[in-house]
């Protein structure tokens, strides 16, 4: 039965595109040599990556002491960056899995790039715990297996170990999910490839996809099952990240709202990053007919919703710190807002709570420039959020004699910069090798609310 749409619905693909237009528009960029702008962006990103690589090499050769950590503050930039990048990844899974289960058809234009972003963000995140081990060549000791070191087993009660399981699981499923979605599109690339090598490579990767009814049927079954599996997984990942802090007894860390608060914050920051990237991609590759203002609006609404949950969590924490009547709890939050690092708290509040409120207005949600600026503001704010949570509680612990301060060293900063370099380098490579929009899925929604338009073949 044909689907029926209300008159209130807006089409998801504009400008009377046909099926072949979609294939051509998405694949065209892969047919040419990279543009000057691409090379410029790539050189900048790669240089940043090199800076990070040098910093990490120096840190591994010299020791973790090259970071700004001290006895009181044992966690700072490293874990902040780790949580930041893991959080960025969450939007990809939300778009690909959760919005799929919620039948949000607008996701089809952005899910491919968002999932790629997830994978790259998890790679960036994974670096930090590994280099934090100090001797990364022994990082495999985190994996439990019968060994000759005693045998020495990991502490199964430690959330840090759960993190290892959660993140490796998350990376695996995200990759499989992303790749499964890619298979029909890889077959398209195979079919239109002109060079023999390209045909071979895309042919190998598309697993002999034949586009038959039966193939599509199985593909859709697998896709649904993976979406069902990825949904609880993505929630569990940031939940376990939050447990790294919340299972402790440190005021400001130990608070029961942390799991849902972290998950919402992750999706919030991830959507901001998706918007940042997709607004650039949309402009440069002329995807305005596929990533429409309607799509941007939807993403802004998700930002309002998840940002609202984050705001609720900030408010609840403040209120309960007062309500608890516990002097340590109260002090932790007064220190957060008014202590020596108070400025970071106010950056966090203004970037994450105040700035997104602009998205209540339809006019601003449809103003690409405003959305782009706010998305960057949120990215900054969410980095600071993690910094505030991790740092301010550590600087003022239970014993005033051990109170201390943290200043990042040049190595701290270079490593952070390097992670951005890695992320953008990977994303730029992706933009040259694979279709950035899911061709098969967009074709599926071509007729959505189009009222017969776009039927030309």
């Amino acid at each position, binding site marked *: 039965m044909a689907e029926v749409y209300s008159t209130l619905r807006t089409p998801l693909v504009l400008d009377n595109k046909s099926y072949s237009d979609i294939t051509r528009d998405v694949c065209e960029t892969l047919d040419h040599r990279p543009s000057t702008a691409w090379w410029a962006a790539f050189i900048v990103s790669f240089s940043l990556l090199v800076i990070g690589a040098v910093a990490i090499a120096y840190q591994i050769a010299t020791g973790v002491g090259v970071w700004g950590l001290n006895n009181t503050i044992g966690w700072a930039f490293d874990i902040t960056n780790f949580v930041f990048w893991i959080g960025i990844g969450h939007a990809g899974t939300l778009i690909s899995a959760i919005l799929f289960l919620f039948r949000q058809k607008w996701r089809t234009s952005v899910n491919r790039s968002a999932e790629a972003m997830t994978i790259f963000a998890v790679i960036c995140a994974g670096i930090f715990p590994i280099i934090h081990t100090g001797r990364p060549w022994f990082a495999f000791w985190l994996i439990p297996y019968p060994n000759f070191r005693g045998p020495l087993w990991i502490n199964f009660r430690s959330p840090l170990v759960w993190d290892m399981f959660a993140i490796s699981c998350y990376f695996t499923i995200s990759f499989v999910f992303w790749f499964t979605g890619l298979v029909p599109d890889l077959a398209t690339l195979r079919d239109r490839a002109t060079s023999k090598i390209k045909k071979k490579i895309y042919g190998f990767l598309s697993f002999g996809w034949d586009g038959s009814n039966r193939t599509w049927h199985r593909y859709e079954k697998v896709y649904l099952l993976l979406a069902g599996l990825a949904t609880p997984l993505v929630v569990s990942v940031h939940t376990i990240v939050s447990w790294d802090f919340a299972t402790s007894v440190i005021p400001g860390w130990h608070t*029961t709202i942390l*799991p849902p608060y972290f998950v919402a914050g992750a999706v919030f920051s991830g959507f901001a990053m998706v918007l940042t990237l997709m607004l650039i991609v949309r402009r440069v590759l002329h995807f305005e007919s596929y990533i429409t203002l309607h799509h941007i609006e939807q993403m802004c609404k998700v930002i309002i919703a998840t940002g609202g949950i984050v705001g609720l969590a900030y408010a609840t924490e403040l209120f309960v710190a007062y309500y608890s009547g516990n002097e340590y709890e109260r002090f932790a939050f007064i220190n957060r807002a008014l202590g020596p690092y108070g400025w970071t708290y106010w950056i966090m509040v203004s970037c994450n709570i105040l700035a997104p409120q602009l998205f209540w207005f339809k006019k601003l949600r449809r103003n690409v420039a405003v959305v782009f600026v706010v998305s960057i503001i949120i990215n900054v704010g969410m980095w600071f959020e993690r910094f505030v949570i991790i740092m301010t509680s550590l600087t003022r612990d239970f014993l005033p004699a051990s109170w201390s301060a943290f200043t990042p060293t040049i190595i701290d900063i270079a490593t952070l910069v390097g992670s951005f370099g890695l992320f953008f380098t990977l994303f730029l490579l992706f933009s040259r090798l694979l279709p950035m929009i899911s061709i098969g899925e967009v074709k599926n929604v071509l007729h959505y609310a189009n009222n017969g338009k776009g039927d030309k073949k």
Partner: protein
Amino acid sequence: MIMNLHKSEDVLAGIPRLRRNLALVMALGAITASIGAFVAPERAWPNILLASFYLLSLGLAGVLFIALQYVSNAGWSVAIRRAPEALAGILPIASLLMVITLLGIPSLYEWSHADAVSGNHLLQAKAGWLNVPFFVIRTILYLSVWFVFAFYLRKFSRQQDATGDVSLTRKNKKLSGGFLVVIALTFTLASMDWIMSLEPEWYSTIFGMYNLSGMLLNGLAAIAVVVIILRRTGPLRTVVTDSHLHDLGKLIFAFSTFWMYIWFSQYILIWYANIPEEVVYFVNREKGSWTIFAGLNVVFNWLIPFVVLLSQWSKKNEGLLLKVCVIIMIGHWIDLYWMILPPFLKTGPEVSLWEIGPFAGMIALFFLGTFKAFAQANPVPLKDPLLVESIHHHS
């Protein structure tokens, strides 16, 4: 298709005598609660609080469901929207019960006694928030704000039946956005006020979210129960398809798991950190026969719904879905009982007249009120611009 979609007084025609029996149970419940308030205030008041909060949550869940549908531009649910609107219609009577419950403050809340506060420095530190006048003002504030939103959401929806004006949908969208902000803040505070402050020294930041998840889960179950009854008795027979039940079932499955997630988040963090002033909450709730309730809570609210509703066919099976929903509604009573009663019954739960009376009366009141509210409007929002998607919905 068009038949029977207009207002009818007798939505329960398919189940004769139900109305009379419900009225009887309600009356008996009210009598038990009133006697209990004088004869055994320490037992009756917590159960009256539970019943009022439960009924209020059902009404609020109705509003919350409508608001979520509006802000997400959902089409599938429009045909069944009059059911959550009917739930929202019980808010006034539920609010009245909550106001009556305020009479029980001395029996319920330790912090309301000046002598208890004077000997306890933690209670003194909280006295700015936990004092009787402010508590009463807050309660009235929460109730009136919720009522205003529920009133206008229902009003505009019904107005649309007559005018077919699309701008009413936009108005309700805006109201819904506002309501979501308001409910998040007020329900967090309200659940902390009414329930968490029963043990005034204990605190947990996730408590509001926990109650919100339970409220929504129970509300979805109640909506499904109401929809299934109305489908069986007539008014929604031609409208509700298996696809609608499938989608309701999916939401119930999802929020059951969400509730479990929030439950576990709170439990593991408090268990793991093992700070005496926090962990006492769960110690008290696992003592003696309270353990049974702790287990049943998880089994009724999550394990059974999860296992049964995992398959597609079970969500489309009307009879099975109804049974699961009834289990969830009992489960929510267990959940609230496990939260509210331990400070009053240290040794273990007791199921007596004081428990059964107010709860059974409240459930009867819920169904009577909901069906009455349902009969006040057309069974389906006839001119909603999204109705067409709901009628042709295939999950």
